[in-house]
C-alpha cells in the first residue's frame, strides 16, 4: 500500500497525459481498458490490480463510456481533479483529430458508392464486435435466471416497444436494485443455496 501510494505520487501530469494519449491513439473498439491495465498496473505500477478492477466496476455501473469513466477515476486517484482532466484530454485528443478529419472528408464524399459500401460493411462488422463485447461483459449475467429476465425485459421494452430510455431507467433501475438489496430475496436465496451446498458436502464427508 505504501509502495503503491509512493509511486502514485511520482506519476507526473505529463506522464499521465502521455499514457492516456497513447491509449487514445492506438486502441480501437474497446481495447482501451486492456491497454490501460497494461500500462497503469503492469508497466508503471501506478495502481494495483485490485484498485484497477474496482475502478472498472464503478465505470461500468455509472453512466458514460467505460473508457472515459475509467480515465476520470484513474486520473483522479493519481493526481486529483487535474489528473482526471489530463487523462480524459489525452484519451480523446487523437480520436477527436481523426474523427473530425473523417467527418469533413465524409461530408464531401458521402454520395460516393464505394465509400458507402465500405461504411455499411464496417457497421455490419461492428454488430459482431458489439455482440462480442456484450457477451464478454455479461458472462456472469447470462447464466443467472433473474438477470436474464431483467435483461430480456429491458431489451423488449427498448427494442420492440420503443419505450423511452428515461422511463426504462427510472422504472427498472430502482426495481433491480431493490431485488438485489442487502438481505433481499436474491441474497437470501443465494445464501440458502450456499448453506445447502455446504450441508451436502458435510454429509458426503460424514458418509466416508
Amino acid at each position, binding site marked *: 500500500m505504501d509502495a503503491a501510494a509512493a509511486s502514485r505520487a511520482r506519476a507526473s501530469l505529463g506522464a499521465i497525459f502521455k499514457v492516456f494519449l497513447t491509449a487514445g491513439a492506438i486502441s480501437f473498439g474497446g481495447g482501451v481498458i486492456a491497454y490501460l491495465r497494461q500500462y497503469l498496473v503492469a508497466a508503471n505500477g501506478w495502481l494495483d490490480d485490485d484498485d484497477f478492477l474496482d475502478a472498472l466496476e464503478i465505470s461500468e455501473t455509472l453512466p458514460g463510456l467505460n473508457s472515459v469513466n475509467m480515465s476520470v477515476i484513474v486520473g483522479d486517484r493519481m493526481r486529483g481533479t487535474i489528473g482526471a482532466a489530463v487523462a480524459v484530454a489525452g484519451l480523446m485528443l487523437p480520436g477527436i483529430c481523426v474523427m473530425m478529419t473523417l467527418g469533413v472528408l465524409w461530408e464531401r464524399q458521402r454520395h460516393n458508392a464505394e465509400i458507402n459500401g465500405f461504411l455499411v460493411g464496417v457497421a455490419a462488422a461492428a454488430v459482431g464486435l458489439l455482440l462480442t463485447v456484450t457477451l464478454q461483459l455479461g458472462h456472469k449475467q447470462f447464466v443467472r435466471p433473474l438477470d436474464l429476465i431483467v435483461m430480456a425485459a429491458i431489451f423488449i421494452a427498448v427494442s420492440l416497444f420503443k419505450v423511452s430510455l428515461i422511463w426504462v431507467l427510472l422504472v427498472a*433501475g430502482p426495481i433491480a436494485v431493490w431485488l438485489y438489496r442487502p438481505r433481499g430475496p436474491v441474497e437470501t436465496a443465494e445464501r440458502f443455496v450456499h448453506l445447502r451446498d455446504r450441508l451436502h458436502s458435510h454429509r458426503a464427508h460424514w458418509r466416508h
Partner: protein
Amino acid sequence: MAHKLLTLAWVFALLSILAVGGGTAVLPEMQKLTVTQYHWVTDQQFRDIYSLGQVAPGPNMLMVLVIGYRLAGAAGAAVVGFAFFLPDCILTLFANRMWMRYKDSLWRNAIQRGMAPIAIGLMLSGTYALARLSIHNLVGLAVAAATLAVLMWRRVNPVLLISAGGLIYLVCFTRLAQGR
C-alpha cells in the same frame, strides 16, 4: 443558430446522463432523437457516422462530433462534444469519490449487481439497432457472424476485422453493381 446549438447541447447532455452501459446502450435513444424526432440526420447517415467512429481510434462515441459538425459546423462539434462527455465526467468524478467512502456498504454491491443486467440488456438493444441499420443481405449477415466468430475464437485487434468487413462488403457490392 444559437437556438440550434442550445437544442444540440440539451439533447446530447440528456443522452450523456442516460448512457448507463456506455455508448452502445444509448444508441437506440440517440437514433430516436437525432433521426426520428429532430431529423438532424437520416438513418443511413446515422449508420455511416457510426461507422466513421469505428474506424477512428479512441472512444467510438466520438461519432457525435460529426453529427454536431453536420448541423452547425465547428461550433456544433464543440458544443456536442462538451455536452455528451462533460456531464458524465463530472458525475463520475464525484460519484467515484463517494463510492470510495462507502466501499464496504452492502448497498454498493446491490447497486452494482442490479444495474449490471440493465446495462447488458441496453447494450443488446444497441447492437440490435445497429444490426437493423446495417444488415440488409446475406453478405452483411456473414460479415457480422464472421467478426463475432473470430473475436470469440481469439484476440485480434478489432480494427483489422472492422476494415476487413468494410472491404469485403465493398468488393461484393461493386461486383453486384457491375454484374447488373
